[in-house]
């Protein structure tokens, strides 16, 4: 602490009440700007205080929505008929099928997933360039789960000050009970997190009963165990360390911000010079900024930083410091927004406004006599996100999305692959014909059985036989394809080299759905050898 005060007399974390001013929090950011940080430092435990306000409510809402999506999705049903599972979202690794509502993806259609990843990448550009690190602050699972864990911690042990006191207390029945309850709930959440994950990979209701009767696969239990461990460790113990040290996202996102991106900003052009002795200074005739140095913004920060040191890598832009500061400003009867979402452009304009000719910040230049902000101050609004860069990102993102929607709705659900025998490439038959062998693979990607007519085009007089069928050679073969299955079938094609001519011939296999309209074809070659 810079001021020695009577810190020893107080329990840690207690707000220091000052006559006429707001409570002041005895808190120090983990990465104070004016102190050189060691390269390796033990973790400083952070006790985030509960914030109240607009962004806290927004975060509760987003947490509720994201957690609901995560937990409920595997339980949604979607009727696909009798030959396919009825789970709306299912990653069936065993059969290598991915189901997403009306869409079914086979492994060779993985490019849709690649397309989604491209969209996610451009979506990252879009979101970051327009609203900054909103992903970090609101939607990242690490943020959501840490928020949930802190909520539980507060429920059991109380808010910041009580938690700090509890940490310093010697172990006793009360402390043990609280710790057992807290870690018990954390572990329950962690188990539920891992438990929900595996439902995406198997029929959820069946797996749910199997899990409890001990009949589920070993991989299910080990997945739950691993995710329980990671959730408990990352959400309960490592928390901000993940974001600061382990996650590449802050580095990537930091590189994508520009002067028009929304960032959580301490508006020092109206806050400085800060003072916790406002009345005394006013008596002495000094002009002070709005910041009363109450440290509320530091106390609520889940990353344990001081936003007044400027934009920094650790800041996940959760905006809880905005809530904390606004409520203090409200109590003092000053306009909110001392800490606010602002673009660098707006901030610089306001800073230029506030600086006097000597380059010192003079808050009087941006204030009217009654303390409200002057009209010349620029306020960042939602319009800041409408600009060419974000528009281009959005158009590219939307174009890829629309292309994928079109592609997925227009794709064929029948496919054919043909493998030509290589050894031997061709066989001379006793009647002088030349025969080639092929393995054809019919992909019936519809969850219903189909009857297909196989023909071969581009080879005069070509006849087909199926090994083992014992039929005479014929021009077309009818094949049954089982629902949602691949059928591999050996096919012989024979032709008279006097008709076809010697050498290689391009041919085309074609399958046609007898009772439907889809067909598929595949180019192959027929080797006639050197003729007779």
């Amino acid at each position, binding site marked *: 602490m810079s001021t020695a005060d009577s810190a020893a007399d107080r329990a840690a974390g207690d707000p220091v009440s000052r006559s006429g001013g707001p409570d002041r929090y005895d808190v120090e950011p983990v990465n104070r700007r004016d102190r050189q940080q060691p390269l390796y430092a033990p973790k400083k435990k952070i006790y985030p205080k509960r914030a109240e306000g607009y962004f806290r409510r927004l975060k509760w809402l987003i947490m509720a929505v994201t957690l609901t999506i995560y937990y409920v999705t595997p339980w949604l049903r979607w009727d696909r008929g009798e030959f396919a599972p009825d789970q709306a979202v299912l990653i069936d690794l065993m059969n290598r099928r991915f189901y997403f509502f009306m869409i079914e993806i086979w492994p060779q259609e993985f490019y849709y997933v690649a397309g989604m990843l491209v969209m996610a990448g451009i979506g990252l550009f879009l979101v970051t360039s327009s609203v900054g690190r909103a992903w970090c602050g609101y939607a990242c699972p690490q943020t959501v789960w840490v928020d949930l864990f802190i909520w539980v911690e507060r429920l059991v042990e109380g808010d910041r000050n009580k938690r700090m006191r509890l940490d310093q207390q010697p172990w006793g029945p009360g402390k043990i009970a609280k710790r057992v309850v807290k870690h018990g709930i954390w572990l329950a959440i962690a188990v539920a997190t891992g438990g929900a994950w595996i439902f995406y990979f198997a029929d959820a209701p069946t797996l749910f009963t199997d899990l409890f009767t001990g009949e589920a696969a070993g991989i299910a239990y080990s997945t739950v165990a691993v995710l329980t461990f990671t959730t408990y460790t990352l959400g309960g113990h490592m928390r901000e360390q993940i974001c600061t040290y382990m996650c590449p996202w802050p580095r990537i996102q930091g590189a994508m911000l520009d002067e028009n991106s929304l960032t959580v900003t301490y508006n020092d052009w109206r806050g400085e010079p800060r003072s916790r002795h406002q009345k005394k200074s006013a008596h002495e005739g000094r002009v002070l900024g709005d910041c009363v140095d109450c440290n509320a913004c530091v106390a609520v920060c889940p990353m344990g930083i001081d936003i007044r040191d400027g934009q920094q890598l650790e800041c996940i832009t959760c905006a809880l410091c905005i809530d904390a500061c606004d409520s203090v400003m409200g109590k003092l009867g000053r306009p909110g927004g001392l800490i606010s979402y602002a673009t660098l452009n707006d901030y610089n304009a306001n800073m230029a406004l506030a600086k006097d000719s000597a380059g010192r910040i003079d808050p009087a230049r941006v204030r009217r006599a009654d303390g409200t902000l002057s009209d010349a101050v620029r306020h960042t609004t939602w319009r800041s996100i409408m600009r060419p860069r974000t528009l281009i990102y959005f158009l590219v993102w939307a174009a890829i999305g629309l292309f994928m929607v079109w592609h997925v709705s227009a794709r064929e659900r029948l496919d054919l692959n043909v493998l030509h*025998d*290589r*050894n*031997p490439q061709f*066989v*001379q*038959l*006793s*009647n*002088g014909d030349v*025969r080639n*062998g092929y393995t054809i693979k019919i992909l019936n990607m519809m969850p219903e059985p189909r009857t297909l007519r196989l023909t071969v085009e581009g080879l005069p007089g070509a006849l087909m036989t199926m*090994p*083992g069928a014992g039929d005479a050679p014929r021009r077309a073969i009818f094949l049954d394809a089982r629902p949602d299955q691949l059928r591999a079938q050996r096919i*012989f094609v024979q032709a008279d080299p006097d008709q076809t001519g010697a050498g290689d011939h391009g041919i085309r296999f074609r399958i046609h759905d007898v009772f439907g309209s889809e067909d598929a074809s595949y180019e192959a070659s027929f080797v006639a050898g050197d003729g*007779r």
Partner: protein
Amino acid sequence: MSDKPHVDEISGVETTGHEWDGIRELNNPLPRWWVWIFYATIVFSIGYAIYYPSIPLLNDFTKGVGGYSSRAELNQELDAAAAAKAGLLARLAETDVTEIPSDPELMRFAVSGGAAAYRVNCSQCHGSGAQGGFGYPNLNDDAWLWGGDLQSLYTTIAHGIRFETDDQTRYSEMPAFGRDGILDRQQIKALALYVRSLAGLDDGWVDAGETEQSFLDNCAACHGEDGKGMAMMGAPNLTDAIWLYGSETDQIIRQISEPRHGVMPAWGDRLGDVTVKQLTLYVHQLGGGE
């Protein structure tokens, strides 16, 4: 080295005392988690050394209390694989070779087993794709010297062809019409041209009378009056497009004068009945089975 450890002024950390051109090495302790994992691996290695075979001795090694050996593990896996196949092998043994195709599961098993056995035992002569070669029949086509139905294939594989140590082997020998002086060169050449005409290879042959009589006298007993061969005798069809020793006039003259005869070993005793059945079904489904 002085008694007092040197402390780096900037970081406040002890150095190792070594110095290279004024550069000193900080003696930072290893991270505790790393040290504990290191200790844990030492403890683990002791248990490992006791449980598993590990320490080499002069002529032997410690066997470990767990009784583990990689050879025993391999044998277990082989036994498990054999046990998994035992049921199907037993069914294969008691099913007649002609009835196996009506059982899809057994058929699939037989064909895969046959494919493996083929590569080990047959591919040396008949080729890896069963495409044969000069003097070695192609097993993909629909021409069979000794019959291409399942029973005939089974007999051929089990007892071989012209394989003298098997008393059930099938045997046939074409007379050496030239070497033994049965026909003169002129007659043999005429016969060769006649045979080519039977297969539609020469369009110009007209004077059939005398040579046709010669064919009927010398060849028809085995090859048939129409030249279509006889599987009972192992006599090839002379009218088709398949020629084991070539279809050129010179090649046919050579075969009439001094015939070559292939020998196929009998595999029944060597491979056993089940493998021969598997080979039969594999060869049969290659495309030419009758």
